[in-house]
């Protein structure tokens, strides 16, 4: 069990992570002065070639953490960096492949049209645009939906569209928030293959999921969050098939949850 760590210490990190959270704390303050610590002292590095999962119960702070990673929220203290840069600095230069938990795309847009828009914003050259869009349409099985408007899509198809747009830019950083949510069993299986295809030495993938079985099958390490903290960091090759046990232990209660 020596490969199961509680917390994360950068002194043990030999290579600099592509994605790095260093002692990130985020406190929400209400106008009446009440405070909620959504994330507290969270540290984690995702290196090139890594596929790292992020798990935790509702309210554990996963969404806040992703918002901080994308520069949509600022941490109260600590820092998040991508490629050694502030998130917005990196993203505005290179972009990241991001699938949000809630796939929010203008419902009036048509599927192919939406993908062309995202491809342009992702910096795909005009000469490659049609081929790149057709590629993700084929990979995510969207061909029969191309002419539909986004509002006509089922939950699962919308999820696939969200995943398709995340792959357009061929980014070195992928952040997939509940990517298999709403997918039917056959697409869930296909998604596992897809994560395998997306792995490459220069790419860091952060996969947020409630589905422990999904994580067991797709990632190298799982960071389990509880009450805003990194409760455990589980190396999958050592832990398999007992991620569920680690999860139960890590999220059992405040007195039992590990603190970094």
């Amino acid at each position, binding site marked *: 069990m020596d490969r199961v760590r509680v917390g994360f210490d950068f002194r043990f990190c030999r290579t600099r992570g592509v994605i790095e959270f260093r002692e990130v704390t985020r406190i929400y303050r209400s106008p009446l002065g009440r405070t909620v610590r959504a994330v507290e002292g969270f540290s984690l590095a995702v290196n090139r070639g890594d596929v790292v999962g992020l798990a935790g119960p509702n309210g554990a702070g996963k969404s806040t953490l992703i*918002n901080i990673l*994308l*520069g*949509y*929220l*600022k941490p109260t203290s600590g820092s998040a960096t991508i490629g050694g840069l502030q998130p917005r600095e990196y*993203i*505005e*230069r*290179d*972009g*990241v*492949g*991001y699938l*949000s938990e*809630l*796939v*929010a*795309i*203008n419902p*009036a847009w048509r599927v192919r049209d939406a993908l062309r*828009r*995202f491809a*342009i*914003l*992702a*910096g795909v050259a*005009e000469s490659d645009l049609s081929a790149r869009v057709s590629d993700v349409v084929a990979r995510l099985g969207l061909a029969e939906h191309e002419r539909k408007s986004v509002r006509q899509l089922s939950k699962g198809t919308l999820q696939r569209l*969200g995943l398709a*747009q*995340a792959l357009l*830019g061929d980014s070195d950083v992928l*952040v997939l928030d509940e990517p298999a949510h709403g997918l039917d069993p056959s697409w869930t299986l296909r998604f596992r293959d897809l994560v395998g295809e997306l792995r490459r030495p220069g790419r860091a993938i952060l996969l947020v999921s409630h589905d422990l079985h999904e994580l067991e099958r797709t990632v190298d390490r799982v960071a389990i969050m509880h009450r805003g903290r990194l409760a455990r960091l589980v190396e999958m090759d050592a832990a398999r098939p007992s991620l569920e046990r680690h999860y139960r232990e890590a999220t059992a209660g405040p007195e039992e949850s590990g603190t970094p």
Partner: protein
Amino acid sequence: MSGRLGRYAAYQCRDYVRERGIPLLLVGALLLLMAERGAIGAGGVDLSGSGLRTLATAAIFLELFAPTAVLIGVNGIVSGDRKHSYYRLLFAKPVSPVRYYAHAWLVSLAGTLLATLLVLAGFIAFLGSIPVAASLQFVLLYFVLFGGVGFLLSAITEYDWVALGVVWSLAWLLRSWLPAGESWLGRMVDAILPPLHLLAGASATLLSGGRIDTHAWLWIVGYGIAAFLAGILVIRNRPMAS
């Protein structure tokens, strides 16, 4: 970056037409119908010639059309994406929100002027000839001033159309209650609130071949651009998520 947004501008134009341009043309058509039926016009104004009557009607028409056009043109321009969470996928791409929304505002300005041209064509066809360049200049000034303020408010709050209405009303009400020349409070109100009063009657001045006083012109344009730049600062510094 600007290359990407330059290519994306075609889609922003399409969005403008569908979400703002068509509603604006519908409002313009309704206002034209009202003007043609005499509901908008130089009622009570003693005008000797029908040409002058047309100009007076056009002046009143523009004073109604311009604020409506700006309200439709900038409402939700930033706040809509926040409210619907569209920003999440858009700005994971290598795109600066500042440039994206600055582009969107410029597209809205261009679209509003184009829609105004079409409405003016309708005015000329049904009510008589009016100076097109002067009419466009009035709408342009209104957009720069009121649209700049609208952009700032949209960057600050998701209730931007309500806030814009409040600012518009306050600008009129407080100036009438606290005249600038009578107290320090009046001078402060005059300096802080958008100088909409300088646009009151400006349509008539421009349509009759006159010019807006240089000081007033600079104050209108300067205020609008300052508000727009403040909006840019807010977008740059305010996190998209809350």
